[in-house]
């Protein structure tokens, strides 16, 4: 690939570095909804409620946010709507699984299917654009935030591209995602609520005998789950994209679930897993049709399937063991 001319090599290196930074940049963008959702799933499962309905809640929020933003021309009201709708579905999940002790898997699945139909049905009825919402412009979207001095610093080698392309120029939800990760860690490991939450997913009877309501704790976990899925969906339709598109989550909720398992139900590793999966996605997009040395062309589908394959291998216990919170998936019934 390199040219015989020494100068050219330098150019290439610089170019390669810029390319790398750009891939990282798009990694971050792709990973944001995954991070929100993985944390959402983490709160739910840490409390003992399996939630495969991340996908549905995210999609519902994406629609609600885009629709509201389109009508009100305010991204912030859109964000509120997205979060509220997502919480509503989280509460429905809680109502079915916590109050009525229904199957958590069935409930999550029902929400996913319901939402994938409902968003499009309402979209068609309200906006007459085949299920899409109107294109969002100006204040209806979350704009990129330019950090001060990008023009000055941008010229500096190495640091420049990192500052300009990677750190600066994202919208507020991207920064929020990376802030929510340590926040979640802090909530889980440094607060009373977090301690109880972790306990209730492992041994609800212990929590009950300590005089704490198991149901109320789980509902609060679902509330957090709803908020986070709401942020993920809002990001997709009003920050990353500029409208709601049918089934725009495209399995991201499930990838987030995989990332959560891959991160062994811990915030920081889960984020790293999201970044890894996001990186794979970005690389896959760049590598389409590119001939690599030695291996030749890598099929995009191979890279796309990688998160799922890795998760299955992990679940099978071939590389380390992913042990779910002990009580997750089991409705709590007080003895007798």
């Amino acid at each position, binding site marked *: 690939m390199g040219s015989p001319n020494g100068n050219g090599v330098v150019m290439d290196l610089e170019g390669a570095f810029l390319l790398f930074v750009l891939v990282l940049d798009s990694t971050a963008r792709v990973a944001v909804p995954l991070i929100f959702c993985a944390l959402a799933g983490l709160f739910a499962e840490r409390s003992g409620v399996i939630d495969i309905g991340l996908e549905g809640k995210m999609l519902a929020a994406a629609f609600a946010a885009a629709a509201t933003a389109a009508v009100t021309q305010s991204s912030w009201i859109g964000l509120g709507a997205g979060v509220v709708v997502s919480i509503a579905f989280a509460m429905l999940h809680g109502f079915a699984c916590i109050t009525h002790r229904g199957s958590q898997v069935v409930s999550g699945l029902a929400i996913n299917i319901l939402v994938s139909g409902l968003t499009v049905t309402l979209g068609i009825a309200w906006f007459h654009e085949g299920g899409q919402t109107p294109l969002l412009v100006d204040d209806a979207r979350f704009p990129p935030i330019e950090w001060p001095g990008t023009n000055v610093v941008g010229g500096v080698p190495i640091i420049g591209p990192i500052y300009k392309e990677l750190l600066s120029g994202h919208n507020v939800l991207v920064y929020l995602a990376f802030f929510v990760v340590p926040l979640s860690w802090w909530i889980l*490991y440094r*607060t009373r609520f977090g*301690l*109880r939450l972790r306990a209730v997913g492992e*041994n609800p009877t212990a*929590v009950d*005998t*300590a*005089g704490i309501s198991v149901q109320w704790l789980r509902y609060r976990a679902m509330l957090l789950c709803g908020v986070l899925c709401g942020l993920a969906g809002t990001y997709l339709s009003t920050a990353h994209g500029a409208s709601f598109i049918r089934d725009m989550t495209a399995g991201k909720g499930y990838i987030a679930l995989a990332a959560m398992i891959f991160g062994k139900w811990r915030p920081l590793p889960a984020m790293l897993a999201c970044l890894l999966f996001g990186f794979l996605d970005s690389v896959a997009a760049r590598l389409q049709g590119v001939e690599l040395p030695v291996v030749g062309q890598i099929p995009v589908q191979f890279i796309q399937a990688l998160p799922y394959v890795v998760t299955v291998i992990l679940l099978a216990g071939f590389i380390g063991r992913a042990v779910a919170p002990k009580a997750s998936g089991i409705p709590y019934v007080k003895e*007798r």
Partner: protein
Amino acid sequence: MTPSDRRVDGLRNAIDPPAVELININKRFGSVQANRNVSLSIAPATIHGIVGENGAGKSTLMSILFGFYQANSGEIRVNGKTTRIRTTEEAIRAGIGMVHQHFMLVDSFTVLENVVLGAESGRLLKESLSTARQTLDLLESKYGLEVNVDTLVGDLPVGLQQRVEILKALYREAQILILDEPTGVLTPQESEQLFNILLGLRDRGVTVILITHKLREIMAITDTVTVMRGGEVVAHRTTSQTSEPELAELMVGRKVLLRVEKGISQPGSVVLDVREVETIDQRGVKRLHNVSFNVRSGEIVGIAGVSGNGQSELLEVLAGIRTVTAGRISLNGKPLIDQFNPRDAGQVRGLGVGHVPEDRLRMGLVRSFEAMESSILGIHSDRRFNAMVFMKLDAVLENCRHKMEAFDVRPRNPHLVTVNFSGGNQQKLVLAREMDEKPGLLLVGQPTRGVDIGAIEFIHKEIVAMRDAGRAVLLVSVELEEIMSLADRILVMFDGHIVGEVTASHASEQELGLMMANAATPASAIRS
């Protein structure tokens, strides 16, 4: 404790109101009266024992005191004041702590986190944890409850986990501590340490309630003792003025024996021979220690013991459900199972072993199956019920009808769903299935648990009939009365060991009771 100390205690007790008073507590579960007019009073800073057989109502009573259940009627007074305890939270607030038989701990948490859970001082953990660390330091040195507070509870041995439970209660400033069968999971050394801790607690003013069925423990550390039987209090005693034999007699009681008409057994050749069998469960705990015995044709061998002393495991090992980790089992002189040659339950059954499991709904039947389906569980692959591909439903139906007739299962409806039969009729269905196969060896666990009187008599007769037909029967029951009226030879199990053997005709309840509580010395117990 010297006599003068006791007098001082007595004096103090006379002044202070009782730490706990229960007045006429009644509790029903459905039609079962778990507690009937139970009254007791416990002086502060004493260790009070509550003894009784399984099902005597001890645990229910304590669960009521701890707010897990609510009594149907009755009054609870704590330190002289009438107290309403509707939730565990209210019990904790009243100064009551409980160490459950199954620990209420989160394995993936440290000791410190477990202690703090539910008793945090604020929304942030840091402060809670540091105050807890200090308080625990104090508690540990005060009561001699050393444990490393930063270890994960799951990594601690059982004895230390129990210590964490005690620390949890003390951290919540419990002045009344209930321990439910605390030594069930402990080694003798750990038990000894526990007793020292409990004595220390008492000397520092904590009232301890100890639920147990082990008389030796009662005698060793309690000040007063209440004996329960059949949901009622049968006696209060001051420990120093009673004895193990008296307690044993009170515990077992003089029940009206349902004597079964049976002739003298005529044992034939050895059918089941068990040699030095051991088994280790999934948690790595050895459940059977060096168990050896045999059962001959034409005799009923009964295994007595308080439940949880290895009887269940023994039955499961013999039936091929649980694996043997040492020793060997042979059937009719041929090797059946050993460590290297396991057999599953189907194979064991195929060699002529019937098994009536202890818990019929958990193991012996499928709730949602029709009676005719449940009546072939385990023999469903038999040629009688199968053509090449399809099952012969006519044969299955006929088989069920026949069994229902022979064992008087009511209603005689082979299509009724299993769970809709009464307990007695479910049990008859299981017995019919297992006995009708005419096994050379029949393993029977708790044959009359939850069964009405009429059915009990019927079931007992059938078991004796099996014996008289020259088959070997191994009977496990926690009902001493049942063992005594059915068995020809009685083995007593304690803590996974066989601690004694008695010929039924020579057995007395007191003696067996003592052996079950491991209070009698084995030498005097073995008499056959």
